[in-house]
C-alpha cells in the first residue's frame, strides 16, 4: 500500500551559538496512509513539534534538516523549493498550532483570516469560500456561525479560537491536517466538543491527520495509530488498540502507567498544631477594566470568592475556561488588587497590591504563570532566570548559586546544559518546567500553580507531581493547584473547588469528586474527563443525558 506520507530516516539538528551541532531528531521513519490519523506521543522535548513542522517543510529558526526525506503525496518536502512548498501548504497539508491565541493576527477579522488560504491559493471565489467557512463554523459547533467571523481574535474565548484555527486549517480541503496539542488549553467539556467536531469533519473529508499530544486519553479517542517518541527517536509504532493494551516497549508502558497516577494520600491533617491556615481568601471580588465610582471594575471576573488552605495541604481549583481561575491566582499574588475582600498569609492580612507587600511576604507566596511562553524573559538565558530569585531572596552568589541552579533544573528533570539556552530554544514542556523551577528557587511556603503540567507528557508530569509532593513532605509547603486535568488534580490535592463564571460553585474533598458533586456544572465537568478507552467519545454521543447537559451549558 502506497502511503500518503512517508518519513524516511529523518535527521534534524540545531546549531548552538558556539557553532556546535546538536541532534534533535535522530533518524525517524514512519508512514501515514490516506485518511489515517496518526498520533505522536512521547516525552516533552522529544521532537514531536519538530517532526510535525517538517511535514510542512518548515523548521524553527536555528534548526535544519541534516538528512532524510519527508514525502507527502509523492513530493519530498525537504527537496522542494520554497515556492513549491508554499503551494503545498494549506491545500495539501494544513497545520493547527499549539497555541491558537498566538496564531491569529490580532488586527484582522477572523473570517478574513480563515478564508485567507482560499485567497492565497485561488481555490474558489471569495463568496464561496465565505459560505464554506460558515459551514465549517457550524460543523465545529461554534456559536453564531453566521456572524462570529466578523469579530476580532480577542473577542472570542480560547476554546472558540482553537476551533476557528481548525476551521482555518480545514477550509483548503487539505489531505493531511496536523494538530499540535490542540486541546491543551481547553477544559474538558469544551475539549469534548472540539474532538467530536474534528473527528466528524475529518471523516467526512477523508483526511489524513497527525495528532500531537501527550494526553493518552484524547489520543485514544481520535487516533488510528500511535507513534511513540523519545529523545528524537521512535520507540514504538502500532495501532491505538495495540499500544494501549499491548505495548511492547518499556517506555510506552511507562507512559501508560503514569497515566493513572497514584491518588493523593492526604497528609494527615494536624488541626491542633496549625490553627492558622497557610493561606486564606475571604470574599474576594476582582475584575478588569476601568473602575467606577465605588471602586468596582467594569468587568467582574471574580465574585465574592473565599477559601482556605491549611499548612501542608493542597487545594485544587478547576472550572471552565474563562471562569476566573487564573484571576483568582493573580488576585492572591497581589497582581490584581481585589476591589473587596482580603487575603491572609499565615494569618496576617496582606496588602492588596504586591507593591505594598514586604519582600518576605512576596517570597513566601509564589505564583507560577499559566503561559510559560510569555512568563519567561526571551532575552535572558535560563540560568539567569533561575538565578535571580536565588540572589534576590537569599543573596546567593557565584558557585553556590550555580550549583543550586543545576540542582533546580535537575529537580524538574531538565539537563544542566539547559541553563545556557534562551527560552525561545526550549520546547513547550521545557519552558513550563523552567517556570516552575523559578518559583521553587524562592523557597516559598505557598505556591500558586497555574496549569503547570498541561504541556507535559504523563511520565514527566508524574515526576513533577512527585517532586511537588516530596517537597511538601520535606518543607511543609502548600499548593493551590489550578488545572483542568482532573486526574492530576486528584493526584495531588486534598480538596477541590469548582469555579463557574467567576463564582465558587462547589468545594469538596478530592476523593469525593466522583459522586459527591452537587452543582450541575461540576457533575458535567467530572463526567467529561476522557477515559483511556478508544470507544469512550463515541459512546458519549449515544448518551442522551450527557449530550443534553453539554448543550445546556
Amino acid at each position: 500500500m502506497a502511503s500518503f506520507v512517508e518519513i524516511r530516516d529523518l535527521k534534524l539538528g540545531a546549531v548552538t551559538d558556539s557553532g556546535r551541532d546538536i541532534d534533535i531528531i535522530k533518524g525517524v521513519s514512519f508512514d501515514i496512509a490516506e485518511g489515517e490519523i496518526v498520533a505522536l506521543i512521547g516525552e516533552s522535548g522529544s521532537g514531536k513539534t519538530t517532526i510535525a513542522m517538517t511535514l510542512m517543510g518548515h523548521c524553527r529558526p536555528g534548526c535544519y534538516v541534516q538528512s532524510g526525506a519527508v514525502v507527502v503525496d509523492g513530493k519530498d518536502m525537504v527537496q522542494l523549493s520554497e515556492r513549491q512548498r508554499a503551494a503545498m501548504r494549506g491545500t495539501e497539508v494544513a497545520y493547527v498550532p499549539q497555541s491558537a491565541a498566538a496564531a491569529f493576527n490580532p488586527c484582522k477579522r477572523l473570517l478574513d483570516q480563515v478564508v485567507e488560504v482560499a485567497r492565497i491559493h485561488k481555490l474558489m471565489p471569495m463568496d464561496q469560500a465565505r459560505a464554506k467557512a460558515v459551514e465549517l463554523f457550524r460543523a465545529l459547533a461554534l456559536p453564531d456561525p453566521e456572524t462570529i467571523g466578523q469579530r476580532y481574535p480577542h473577542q472570542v474565548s480560547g476554546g472558540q479560537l482553537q476551533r476557528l484555527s481548525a476551521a482555518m486549517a480545514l477550509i483548503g480541503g487539505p489531505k493531511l491536517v496536523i494538530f499540535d496539542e490542540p486541546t491543551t488549553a481547553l477544559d474538558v467539556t469544551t475539549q469534548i466538543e472540539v474532538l467530536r467536531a474534528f473527528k466528524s469533519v475529518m471523516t467526512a473529508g477523508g483526511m489524513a491527520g497527525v495528532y500531537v499530544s501527550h494526553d493518552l486519553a484524547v489520543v485514544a479517542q481520535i487516533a488510528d495509530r500511535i507513534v511513540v517518541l523519545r529523545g528524537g527517536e521512535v520507540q514504538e509504532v502500532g495501532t491505538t488498540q495495540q499500544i494501549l493494551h499491548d505495548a511492547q516497549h518499556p517506555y510506552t508502558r511507562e507512559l501508560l502507567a503514569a497515566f493513572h497516577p497514584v491518588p493523593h494520600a492526604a497528609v494527615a491533617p494536624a488541626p491542633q498544631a496549625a490553627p492558622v491556615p497557610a493561606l486564606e481568601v475571604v470574599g474576594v471580588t476582582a475584575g478588569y477594566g476601568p473602575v467606577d465610582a465605588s471602586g468596582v471594575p467594569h468587568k467582574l471576573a471574580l465574585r465574592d470568592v473565599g477559601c482556605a488552605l491549611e499548612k501542608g495541604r493542597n487545594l485544587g481549583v478547576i472550572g471552565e475556561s474563562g471562569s476566573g481561575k487564573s484571576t483568582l491566582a493573580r488576585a492572591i499574588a497581589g497582581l490584581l488588587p481585589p476591589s473587596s475582600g482580603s487575603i491572609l498569609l499565615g494569618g496576617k492580612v496582606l496588602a492588596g497590591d504586591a507593591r505594598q507587600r514586604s519582600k518576605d511576604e512576596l517570597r513566601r507566596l509564589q505564583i507560577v504563570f499559566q503561559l510559560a511562553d510569555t512568563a519567561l524573559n526571551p532575552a535572558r538565558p535560563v540560568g539567569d532566570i533561575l538565578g535571580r530569585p536565588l540572589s534576590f531572596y537569599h543573596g546567593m552568589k557565584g558557585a553556590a548559586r550555580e550549583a543550586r541552579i543545576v540542582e533546580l533544573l535537575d529537580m524538574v528533570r531538565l539537563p544542566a546544559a539547559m541553563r545556557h539556552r534562551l527560552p525561545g530554544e526550549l520546547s513547550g514542556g521545557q519552558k513550563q518546567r523552567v517556570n516552575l523551577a523559578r518559583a521553587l528557587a524562592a523557597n516559598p511556603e505557598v505556591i500558586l500553580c497555574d496549569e503547570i503540567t498541561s504541556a507535559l507528557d504523563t511520565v514527566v508530569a508524574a515526576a513533577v507531581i512527585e517532586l511537588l509532593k516530596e517537597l511538601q513532605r520535606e518543607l511543609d509547603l502548600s499548593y493551590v493547584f489550578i488545572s483542568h486535568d482532573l486526574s492530576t488534580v486528584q493526584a495531588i490535592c486534598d480538596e477541590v473547588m469548582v469555579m463557574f463564571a467567576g463564582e465558587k460553585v462547589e468545594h469538596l474533598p478530592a476523593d469525593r469528586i466522583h459522586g459527591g458533586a452537587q452543582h450541575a456544572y461540576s457533575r458535567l465537568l467530572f463526567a467529561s474527563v476522557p477515559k483511556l478507552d478508544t470507544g469512550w467519545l463515541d459512546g458519549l454521543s449515544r448518551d442522551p443525558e450527557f449530550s443534553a447537559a453539554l448543550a445546556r451549558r
Partner: protein
Amino acid sequence: MASSSLSRGLLGYRVNAVGLVASAVILFWLFIALFGGQFTPYPPGEIVDFDYFGPMSGQYWLGTDYLGRDMLSRILMGARYTVGISVAAVLISCFLGVVLGMMAAVIGGWLDTCLSRFLDALNSIPSKLFGLVVVAGIGSSIPVLIGVLAVIYTPGAYRFARALAVNISTMDFVTVARARGERTPYLITQEVLPNILGPVLTDMGLRFVFIVLLLSGLSFLGLGVQPPNADWGSLVRENIGGLSFGAPAVIMPSIAIATLTIAVNLLIDNLPVRIRDRSE
C-alpha cells in the same frame, strides 16, 4: 533549510568579519583622537602654503585647505573633538532618553504623562533658538556643547525607547518580576532593556551620525570647538568651496566622517555575541 555562518569565536564571544573591520576602524579613530595630536606634521592653525585647496602631495599628504593650512594636521586634531564630543553626547542623550523612557513605561501614571509632555515640548523648540539662548545664558565651552547636543537628542531617544518599553512592560515576565518584589532599577535594566536593546542600539547609531553632523551647525553659533581647531563637519563646511575642484580639503574630512559613522553603525549591527554554551 540550512544555515551557515562566517563567524568565529573570540574570548567567549562570537564576532564576524564585518564587526571586526568596523571595530578596527573605530579603534583607529579612537587612537587618533587620543594621540593624533602627536603626529601632526604642522600646527593645525599654521598657514603652510600660499596656495589654497592644494592637492595631495609628499609635503602635504592630504592637501591644504582654503587658507593653505595642512589638512592632515587639521583632521588629526579634529578627530579629538568629533569623536570625543559625539561619543559623549550620544552616550548622555541615549542614556538619559532610554532610562527615562523605560522608567515612564514601567512606572506609568503621572510620571509618564509629565515626562512625555515636557520632552515633547522640548523637542518642538527649534534647536537654533535653543542653542542661541544657551550661549547667551551660560556661555560656550565644550561641556556646554555636549550638554546642548544631549538635550537636543534626548527627547527623540526617549520617545523611541518609551514606545518600545511600553510593549515589553505589559508582558508576563515583567509581572513575574514585579510579583517577586523587584524595584524599578532592576526592572528596567534586567527585564526591559535586554528586550529593546536591538532597536535602541540601532537608534543610537543613527543618533551618533546626526550628532556628528550637527556639531558643525552649532559651531556656527560659537558653541564649543574654538579656532584654530575644528571638528570634521566644520572642516567640510569651511572648505565646501573646494568641492568644485575636487579638493582633498573637502573630500578627506567627509571620508573621515563617513568611515567613522558607517563603522559605528556596522559595529552596532554586528556586535559580538556572547557564546552561551561553551564546554557543555
